[in-house]
């Protein structure tokens, strides 16, 4: 019986692992679609770099930094369980993780998550960051910052001891990536042509909205694994509830963003619809197993409105985020984390306060460490390509390649 339960649970967890892996294609497509043709190779290269190197780093040290085995009640902040991964005794049996999954599955599922934090940054900094600078940033952010923060909650550290709740990572994954993105675009500056001489924002339309749409659909699909797998077993009630709340929040977020942006700007903007779906998904992630369907819809609706306002705010602050990563991942990540204290089974003032403290501590840590990392990047590899390289496009200046060699479109 125990073997059967472990097998069933483990299969579900491996399915979820593959779904989270698939999200990297979703992110790639979204980023490509919302940026210009001349930077396509560069974005794909960054996404390949993040998942490959991210996974290796997680194997070398990340996993053991994130799950170092804090003792109960020691309010863990930082501990390292050593380099490399070796399955512990009993790691393949029912005794490990209450039969939810094997130790190998544990590693790979968490490893797929790890790279996401840098992928979020990749979209925001697109079209002007120096490739070598991004690679250095990604190595340090995925290799050190993400697992250290993750250990505070999922690794059983002090945030966990305080009762901070983040089911699948509104804060631990999305806000961590979002803070990194915010600080990087602040230091990086806007793309040439994003703001005119008077500082008015200008449109730099993405070159392939069908690809971007495919990316969002893939991300939604992947989120079934991201949230569904965060149940950490195939528990029938919790996994099915989680998939329901996840989908309802995504739907509500998309609808809210599409119609709210229509009220503000008088057009039905497909890219706002897409960002709204993602905002809803990020928003529900912190409490996907704690919410009723109504809670999920409300969280999604509010996330959709927040996304539209967030994108306008970023423009107003003279920051340049081509894909809306800060609005989607940072602002909706904060919203989703706080929502655990407002809606659902855990709602309450004390919980809200703990959520707020968690958001604040993680935010402060990510802002400071991002800043330090980016100063290192700036003084070694450099952060931004020069003006001519940016105008020619990073595909040519950084890679010497064309994304669409011999391809032309016939317009109607």
């Amino acid at each position, binding site marked *: 019986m125990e073997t059967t339960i472990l097998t069933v649970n483990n299969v579900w967890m491996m399915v979820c692992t593959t779904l989270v892996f698939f999200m990297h294609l979703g992110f790639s497509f979204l980023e490509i679609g919302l940026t210009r043709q001349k930077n396509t190779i560069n974005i794909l290269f960054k996404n390949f770099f993040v998942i490959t190197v991210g996974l290796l780093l997680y194997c070398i040290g990340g996993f053991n930094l994130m799950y170092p085995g804090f003792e109960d009640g020691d309010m863990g902040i930082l501990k390292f369980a050593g380099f490399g991964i070796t399955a512990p005794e009993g790691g393949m049996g029912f005794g490990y993780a209450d039969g939810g999954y094997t130790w190998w599955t544990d590693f790979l599922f968490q490893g797929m998550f790890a790279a996401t934090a840098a992928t979020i940054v990749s979209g925001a900094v697109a079209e002007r960051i120096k490739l070598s600078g991004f690679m250095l940033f990604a190595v340090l952010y995925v290799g050190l910052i993400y697992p250290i923060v993750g250990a505070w909650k999922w690794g059983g550290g002090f945030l966990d001891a305080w009762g901070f709740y983040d089911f699948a990572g509104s804060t631990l994954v999305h806000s961590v990536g979002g803070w990194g993105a915010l600080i990087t675009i602040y230091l990086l500056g806007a793309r040439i042509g994003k703001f005119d001489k008077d500082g008015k924002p200008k*449109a730099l339309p993405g070159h392939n909205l069908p690809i971007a749409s495919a990316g969002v659909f893939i991300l939604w699909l992947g989120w079934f694994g991201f949230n569904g797998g965060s149940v950490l077993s195939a528990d029938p009630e919790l996994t099915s509830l989680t998939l329901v709340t996840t989908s309802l929040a995504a739907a509500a977020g998309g609808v809210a963003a599409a119609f709210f942006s229509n009220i503000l700007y008088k057009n039905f903007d497909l890219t706002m619809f897409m960002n709204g779906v993602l905002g809803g998904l990020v928003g529900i992630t912190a409490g996907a197993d704690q919410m009723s369907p109504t809670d999920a819809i409300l969280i999604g609706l509010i996330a959709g409105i927040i996304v539209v306002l967030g994108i*306008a705010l970023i423009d107003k602050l003279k920051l340049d985020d081509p894909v809306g990563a800060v609005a989607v991942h940072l602002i909706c990540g904060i919203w989703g984390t706080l929502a655990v204290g407002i809606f659902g089974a855990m709602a309450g003032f004390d919980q809200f306060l703990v959520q707020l403290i968690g958001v604040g501590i993680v935010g402060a840590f990510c802002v400071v460490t991002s800043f330090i990392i980016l100063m290192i990047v700036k003084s070694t590899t450099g952060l931004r390509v020069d003006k001519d390289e940016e105008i020619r496009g990073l595909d040519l200046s950084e890679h010497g390649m064309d994304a669409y060699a011999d391809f032309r479109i016939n317009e109607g």
Partner: protein
Amino acid sequence: MKKIEAIIRKSKFDDVKKALHSVEVNFFSYWDVTGVGNEKEGHVYRGISYSTSEIQRRYLSIVVSEPFVEKTINAILATAATDKVGDGKIFILPVEEAYRIRTGEKGNESLN
């Protein structure tokens, strides 16, 4: 011999081509061009309005003998118009000489 150059809407190209064939103008070249003009198309992207003055049109180059000039112009006028700003223009230029490369024929003979 005259060269008739016409800038037309891409959406009108098939109608114009049919009309030209019906007056027995069977040979011509065309290419897609981008121009600047009075027509502006409003766009909104992620809350930012912008307009582009880039206008996509098709450029026809037709060389015909004198008896065909009127017919060609009328065929284009009759089929390329939508009565909205941006229907395009027709230009008539004299042609000094024309040769068919395969046979070396010249003048009107080379155009048939």
